C-alpha cells in the first residue's frame, strides 16, 4: 500500500501540468455555452446555501444558534455545505473518470493514478472560490478572523485525499460494473442526510456518525469557522477518520493492483 501511495504522489506530481491543463479545459467546456459562465459556477452553490437557510429559518423555524458555535447560524450552515458541494458531485461523477478518459488510457502511455485528479481539479478550483466567498460572508456577518482559520488548508487537504481515494475506488469499480454508478446515486442522498450537513450531529451516537468521513470533513470546516476547535482536540474522530481512510486506501490499492495490468482492454 505504501508503494502505491508513493506511486500516486509521484505520478500526480509528474502529470500536474497535464492535469491542470485538462482541468482548465473542463472548466471552459462546462461554461462555454453561457456568456456569464463563471458567474453561474458560483451563483449555483450560493443559491443552494441561501435556499437551505431560507427553508430552515422560515419553513422549520429552526435557525437557532448552535451550541458551542461562535458564528451565526448562517455561517455554521454554510461551512458545512461548502465542503459538501466539493464532495457531492464527485461522489457520483468521479466514478466515470476512467471510462470518460479511455482514449488516453487505451492509446497513450499515461499513468492511471493521475486520471482521478482530472475531474477533481475543476471542482477544487470552484471550492477555493467558495471558501473565499465563505470567508467574506463570515467577516461581513461579524465573525472575527481567528487563528483557528489556519487549519483550513489541513481540512481541504483531508477532503482532497478522501475524494481522490473515493474517485479512484469508484472509478475502478465502475470499470467492472456500470451498476455501481446507479448504486452510488441511490445512496448519495443518504450521505447528505447522515453527514450532518444541515443539522448538528455533535454528541450524537452511532457508527455512521462516528466513522463517516464526510461528516468528519464538514465538522472540520465548522471547527474552523464556528466551533474554534483544534484538529488534535478531537482525537477520537481523527483516529476514526484515519481508520476509514486506511481501509478505503487498502481496498483501492488492491483493486488497482488487480486491474492495472488489464485496464486498457477492460475499457
Amino acid at each position: 500500500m505504501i508503494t502505491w501511495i508513493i506511486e500516486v504522489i509521484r505520478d500526480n506530481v509528474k502529470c500536474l501540468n497535464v492535469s491542470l491543463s485538462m482541468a482548465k479545459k473542463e472548466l471552459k467546456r462546462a461554461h462555454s455555452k453561457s456568456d456569464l459562465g463563471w458567474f453561474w459556477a458560483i451563483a449555483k452553490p450560493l443559491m443552494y446555501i441561501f435556499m437551505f437557510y431560507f427553508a430552515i429559518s422560515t419553513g422549520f423555524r429552526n435557525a437557532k444558534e448552535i451550541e458551542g458555535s461562535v458564528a451565526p447560524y448562517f455561517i455554521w450552515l454554510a461551512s458545512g455545505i461548502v465542503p459538501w458541494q466539493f464532495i457531492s458531485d464527485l461522489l457520483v461523477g468521479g466514478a466515470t473518470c476512467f471510462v470518460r478518459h479511455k482514449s488516453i488510457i487505451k492509446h497513450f502511455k499515461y499513468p492511471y493514478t493521475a486520471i482521478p485528479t482530472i475531474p477533481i481539479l475543476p471542482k477544487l478550483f470552484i471550492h477555493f472560490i467558495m471558501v473565499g466567498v465563505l470567508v467574506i460572508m463570515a467577516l461581513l456577518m461579524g465573525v472575527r478572523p481567528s487563528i483557528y482559520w489556519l487549519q483550513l488548508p489541513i481540512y481541504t487537504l483531508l477532503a482532497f485525499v478522501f475524494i481522490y481515494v473515493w474517485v479512484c475506488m469508484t472509478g475502478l469499480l465502475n470499470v467492472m460494473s456500470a451498476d455501481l454508478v446507479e448504486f452510488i446515486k441511490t445512496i448519495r442522498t443518504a450521505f447528505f442526510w447522515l453527514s450532518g450537513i444541515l443539522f448538528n450531529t455533535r454528541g450524537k451516537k452511532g457508527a455512521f456518525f462516528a466513522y463517516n468521513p464526510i461528516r468528519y470533513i464538514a465538522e472540520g470546516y465548522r471547527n474552523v469557522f464556528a466551533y474554534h476547535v483544534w484538529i488534535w482536540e478531537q482525537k477520537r474522530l481523527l483516529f476514526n477518520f484515519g481508520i476509514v481512510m486506511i481501509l478505503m486506501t487498502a481496498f483501492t490499492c488492491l483493486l488497482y493492483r488487480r486491474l492495472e495490468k488489464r485496464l486498457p482492454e477492460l475499457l
Partner: protein
Amino acid sequence: MSETIIKVDHVRKTYRNYKSNFQKLRHMLILSGAGEKNRVLKDVSFEIKKGEKVAIFGYAHGGKSTLMHIIAGIIRPEAGTVEVKGKPEVMFDYRLGVEPSLSALDNYEVHAKLLGWSRAQIKERQKEIFQAAGLSKMKDIPLKNCPKGSATRLGFVIETMDMKDFFLVDERMTFGNNKINERYLERFAKLVTPEMTLVMAANDFKYTRQFCDRGIVLHDGVIVFDGPYEEAYQYHKGHPQHKSSKTAVEVVEEAAEDYDDDEVI
C-alpha cells in the same frame, strides 16, 4: 550490423470475452467464472533493427493492434518479454483528449501537453501546426464548428511533429481513401527518413507499400511469415481468412464512424 531496437520474445496475450457484466465483475473480484478465452497472441517472437520499415499484416481482430500496443508499453503481455530501445512515438489516436466544444487552440494545447511538450515547444510549433492542418484562420473557433475532419487533421499534424527515430502507427491510423487522407499520406511520406525505424499495422498494402521493406504476417496469434514486404503481403493475401476479413479501407471507415467530430472523448 545495426542495433536491435525492438526485441519481442515469446509474447502471449489472452483476452476474455464476458457474456455479462455480472460475469466480468465476478471474475474481477473473486477470480472465478471467467469468460471465454480469446488468445490473440499465442507465441510471438521477432526483432526489429534500427532503420527498418516493417508492416505487420493480419486480418481484423487478429492481434496486430494488441502487438503494437504491447510494443508501445500500453498493454502488458501475459507472458514473454518486450525490449524496446528508446521511446517510440506512437500514432494510435489522432483525437487524444479532444473536446469539440472548445477551440482548436485549446485542443492543441491539451494534446501537446499530453505528449509532454514544453510550453516553449507548444508556442514555437503552433504556427507551423495550424498552417499544416489548414486551420490558421480558425484556431479560436470551437472544433465542432470547424469543417468536418478538422479534429483529425489537427491531431495528425500534432502526432507527426515528433516523427524522428522510432515511430509506431496503428491500423486505424493508416490513412483512409479520401482526398484529405491523401494529404496525410503526402505529409507522412515527407517525414519518413532512411534512419527512422517504422512499424505499421496493416491489413492490405495500399498505404504501407511505399514505406515498408519488410513484412511480418500474424495469423491466429502466431507469426507465419517474416521476410520481404511483397512476399509477406502475397502470403497474407493467400490466406483463406483474408478474404472474409475487412479491408484497410473498411477498418478506416469504421474508425471514422467512431470518431464523429461531435463526439466527446
